């Protein structure tokens, strides 16, 4: 298992390099101009100068290698210095945003907590809701509980989050006035009442995303449970006189969780991507919003870096899913 993990990680290196190159080439092909958002009064020569100063005059391979050096060498060194207090020395160029001129990695570090709180929490919440719903729906297949569960997950699955998000805002912010419609990221939690404010502003974005995630995962959970409930080993467990609760929650659930865990692990990077829209709706200035603004502003370094990080997450969680599969299923052996 250890060897397998190492081998897969090493294999991921060329894959990721290729992905970064493709992203770079695609962004270069895109007809975006970092100066397009500047006032029209700026004369073309000045615009050209600005472009040159951003390094756009260099040949594409130079720019790509520069980005690689900055992202793969300089930034990790910075992080190491930061964590361990080392002084590796030297002036290192960092990946800079064209819009704000601040290092992209710093921007990401600023935005990450908001995304993790809202998106991460909603994913965890989605799982916590989905697993029991899936288990009960499967065990009581076609009962009213199962029917309602199926209906809600159909709704959660097929109605896009920008619709449910706006709907919640209209109902709970505009009509009832219970929750704020905008997520205030500058809000500091210092005491009980400010904590309540934080909870209040998180409720809507978190529930929109949690509903969406739970809808998906509960379907998988239900299908997987149904598969396993009909297996012969369940009959064996019952024939042994094992308590029904243990038959379902130990024998069946343990088997059913194998594919579901894989789905959950593979879903983590998608959650970051998929949350872009919800973050926009509730004005959560997380990573999704950072990406949208960067795309609109033609801020190639930010787009390149963020997209690449999403790709990295996908590769990483694929590996995690595979390793988890091997851990959970004794029949799988990686040598």
């Amino acid at each position, binding site marked *: 298992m250890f060897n397998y993990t190492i081998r897969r990680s090493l294999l991921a290196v060329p894959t990721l390099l290729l992905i970064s190159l493709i992203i770079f080439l695609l962004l270069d092909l895109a007809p975006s101009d970092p100066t397009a958002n500047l006032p029209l009064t700026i004369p073309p020569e000045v615009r050209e100068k600005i472009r040159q100063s951003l390094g756009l005059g260099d040949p594409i391979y130079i720019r790509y290698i520069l980005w690689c050096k900055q992202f793969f060498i300089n930034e990790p060194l910075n992080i190491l210095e930061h964590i361990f207090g080392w002084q590796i020395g030297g002036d290192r160029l960092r990946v800079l945003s064209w819009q704000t001129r601040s290092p992209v990695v710093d921007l990401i570090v600023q935005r990450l907590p908001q995304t993790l709180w809202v998106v991460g929490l909603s994913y965890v919440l989605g799982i916590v809701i989905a697993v029991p719903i899936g288990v009960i729906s499967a065990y009581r297949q076609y009962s009213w509980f199962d029917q309602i569960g199926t209906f809600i997950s159909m709704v959660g699955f097929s109605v896009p989050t920008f619709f449910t998000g706006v709907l919640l805002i209209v109902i709970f912010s505009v009509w009832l006035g219970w929750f704020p419609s905008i997520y205030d990221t500058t809000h500091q939690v210092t005491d009980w009442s400010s904590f309540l404010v934080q909870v209040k502003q998180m409720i809507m974005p978190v529930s929109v995303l949690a509903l969406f995630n739970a809808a998906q995962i509960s379907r998988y959970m239900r299908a997987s449970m149904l598969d396993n409930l009909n*297996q*012969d*080993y369940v*009959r*064996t*467990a*019952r*024939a*042994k*006189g*094992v*308590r*029904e609760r243990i038959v379902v929650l130990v*024998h069946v659930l*343990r*088997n059913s969780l*194998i594919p579901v865990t894989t789905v959950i692990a593979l879903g983590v990077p998608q959650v970051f991507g998929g949350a872009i829209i919800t973050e926009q709706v509730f004005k959560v200035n997380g990573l999704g919003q950072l990406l949208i603004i960067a795309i609109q502003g033609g801020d190639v370094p930010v787009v390149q870096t963020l997209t690449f990080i999403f790709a990295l997450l996908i590769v990483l969680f694929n590996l995690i899913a595979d390793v988890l599969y091997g851990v*959970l*299923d*004794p*029949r799988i052996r990686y040598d």
Partner: protein
Amino acid sequence: MPDEGTAVLDVKDLTTVFQTRQGNVHAVNAVSFELQPGELLGVVGESGSGKSVTMMSLIGLLPSPPAKVAAGHVRFANSDLLKVSDEQLRSVRGAEIGFIFQDPMTSLNPVFTVGFQLMEPLRGHMGLTKAQARARAAELLDLVGISDAKRRLSDFPHQFSGGMRQRVMIAIALACDPKVLIADEPTTALDVTIQAQILELVKELRHKLGMSIVWITHDLGVIAGIADRVMVMYGGQVVEQAPVRELFANPQHPYTKALLETIPSVRGARPEKLQVIEGQPPILYDFPRSCSFSDRCAHAFESCRSQNPPAFAVGADHTVSCHWNAEAGAPRNG
């Protein structure tokens, strides 16, 4: 008939119906039989004749819905297993009645060790501590002929061959010293040599442990080798019951005769082709009002199509449900 009251298991008029979309499937129709202490009762019949459903109905192993045990009594240890609470039934299953299934490849849970699965009934029914259960589990594996038992307890099912897994299943079924062992085609999925080993094992354990066994099989050769008494099932009914020698020497029901003729003979001239029973066993959408074998029977006459034959006693401990009197070669009167 042996005297009432001594039987370990006494089943009367057991009737099981599956409620499906196509209608009610009457899988078991008023089945009655007894199992004496230490006896091995062979159950034979074609696929779909209701052998498994009968045995699973006894101890509530059928999924409900769609299955519904509609009528009958199952007397076991002074209680009626069809009337007792779920909790009581659970304390009988795996403790006093052990069950072995047909397919050893899928009957064990793939993600738990063999030791865990073997210790589950020991801890649940006998209240053993973990250490005691482990010691007993190793003994059991040893008993069913698995060498290096202690170490193999921490292996997973996929690390065992099919025959070994069936041995593990037998160990699980025997874990709590059951009074009755129900074996549902335990050797069908195994190759012939392994099949013979398992049979030997059961024969040996049966005398060692002195339990009663219900052995379901398609294989009349197996029955001839191990059974004391045989029950032939067709269309969810018992069509003939007799001691094993009597049944082979003097079969009364046309279906039993046909079954016996399908056994290819090793000696003598080889027939042109294998004997088969023409036609298909029925799927009954109603409780049978006529003999369910009449469509495939050479002797069938009006009564067979208008009246379901009751069990007639035709000899010592030999009953047959047929309107045709095979001895006389004429319809039975009365």
